[in-house]
């Protein structure tokens, strides 16, 4: 039984340790929150030229962090495309930041599921880090003045209703 107690000791230790270490985890994501100014960045894009957030000033911007390996992200893409097409004339734009180190998988996915909004590539995760992406997918909605107004983590069918209401309200500001 000695080996059992050794394993139990290890597991107990790990649980206790993780429990303690996990306590302050709620203090995350202080600056990427509604009201904060959206940090600026520039990334290579599917348009052939780099896109900077500052280029989009004056519009309501939805930034969607996604990956081809993430199921909910794949599910969300066609829905985001619809949003983009419907609200673009009202001063809304959408950018999809792909978080994968290698763009090949993303490009393959987009071939099967084409979208009309620009895809930006963040192979070094610099922008994901900057925006403290804490779930996949993550969606940040920015108002015309460049302020972050809404942050969404994850996606499940039906969430687009919320995006829609928020975009409608912001484009009318």
């Amino acid at each position, binding site marked *: *039984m000695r*080996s*059992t107690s050794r*394993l*139990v000791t*290890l*597991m107990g230790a*790990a*649980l206790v340790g*993780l429990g303690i*270490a*996990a306590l302050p*985890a709620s203090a*995350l994501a202080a600056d990427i929150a509604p009201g904060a100014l959206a940090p600026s960045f520039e990334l290579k894009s599917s348009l052939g030229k780099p896109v900077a957030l500052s280029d989009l000033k004056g519009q309501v911007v939805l930034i969607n962090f996604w990956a081809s390996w993430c199921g909910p992200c794949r599910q969300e893409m066609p829905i985001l495309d619809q949003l983009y097409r419907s609200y673009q004339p009202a001063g809304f734009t959408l950018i999809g930041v792909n978080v994968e180190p290698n763009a090949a998988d993303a490009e393959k996915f987009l071939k099967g599921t084409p979208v009309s909004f620009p895809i930006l590539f963040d192979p070094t995760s610099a922008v994901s880090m900057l925006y403290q992406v*804490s*779930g996949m997918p993550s969606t940040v909605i920015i108002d015309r003045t460049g302020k972050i107004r809404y942050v969404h983590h994850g996606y*499940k069918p*039906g969430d687009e209703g919320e995006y829609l209401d928020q975009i409608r309200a912001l484009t009318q500001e």
Partner: protein
Amino acid sequence: MRHSSWRMRWIPAIAFALIAVVQADVLPDDRSDILYHHFEGAGVTVQGPSVLIRKKFGDSISASYQYYLDMLSSASIDVVSQASPYKEHRTQQNFGVDFLHNNTLYSAGYISSIEPDFNSKTAFLNISQSLFGDLTTINFGYTQGSDAVSKVDKGKHVAISQSGSGAPIFHADADRKNYAVGLSQVLTRNLLLGMNFEVDSTAGYLHSPYRSVRYVDSTVARGYSYQLERYPGTRTSNAASLQLKYYLPLHSALDGSYRFFGDTWGIRASTYQLGYTQTLGSRWTFDASLRYYTQTHANFYSDLFAYPNAQNFLARDRELAQFRSKTLELGASYEFHPSWPHFIQKGSLNIDVERMFIDYEDFRDVLDTQFKAGQEPLYNLDATVGQFFISFWY
């Protein structure tokens, strides 16, 4: 006389099919599987179908149902040496519900198993919680069950024992309780760690009403006779395991695990497993694994007792003997995307074959009658396990 090892100990494993804890913060995928299984070795054939259906209801509930059938036909060494071959069925049904609330997944379920001479009911509860930025998932499980044991002879229930006043007793019960703790930890972008610990306690009628032990008997020509086996009325066991899974370049993965087991009957067991998974293109996945298992015998086990009623408790069940076993597994899976019906997102066809070799170290082959009692060669067996299943995601 029947070989009853097929019963009595199926519950913890099958229950896990319903506790699909991949992560605590998402519900398991909607998925159905249809499986055919076949076991063949040492005079025993067990085969049958199984179906597992899982479906989400709204954002926070997922329900599952599993049907499982064993069609057993046995002419194992125990049966051949002491009785005549027999056939029987076992039907099992599992019902499960998962409820997701924030980062916590609550699972509960009920399992029923029915055989002509063994009925069992089990309820389980499992809570898993993901924390620490989803790098860690912990889970706690509790399982409780009860078994009703009886004895069937030529299609009729017969007494398994007698009460103090000599009246026949047809049924006996056993109660099971199991506590489980598990942890899954992301160590790096490519490395996962899993740890599990379980305490299991069983009390009641734990042996088989059919099985016997043998003892030296110089009054008969073969040199030994049989008497019914007798187990203790309680058993408590601990099991602890550690698993690692590592993602390799070229879209492949390596996994290794170790499990230690110990119980109050004196059995100590170790299980080592090493596996490799390789994908080929976007459709094929191949698996290969090696499993090595070793155990010491229960302290009331003997292949041949020196005289009748040699001790309080008596066992000659192969599962309680000292042995080693090796299993080699090969599997292949092919993914497809059917164009009809439209709600099916993807499907897979899977085939899995295991070759199993067991070498007993203190269980002798009594069918080899040219030797004196207790000097027969040690028994060994090999078996082939096959599974074919088709899965659909929707």
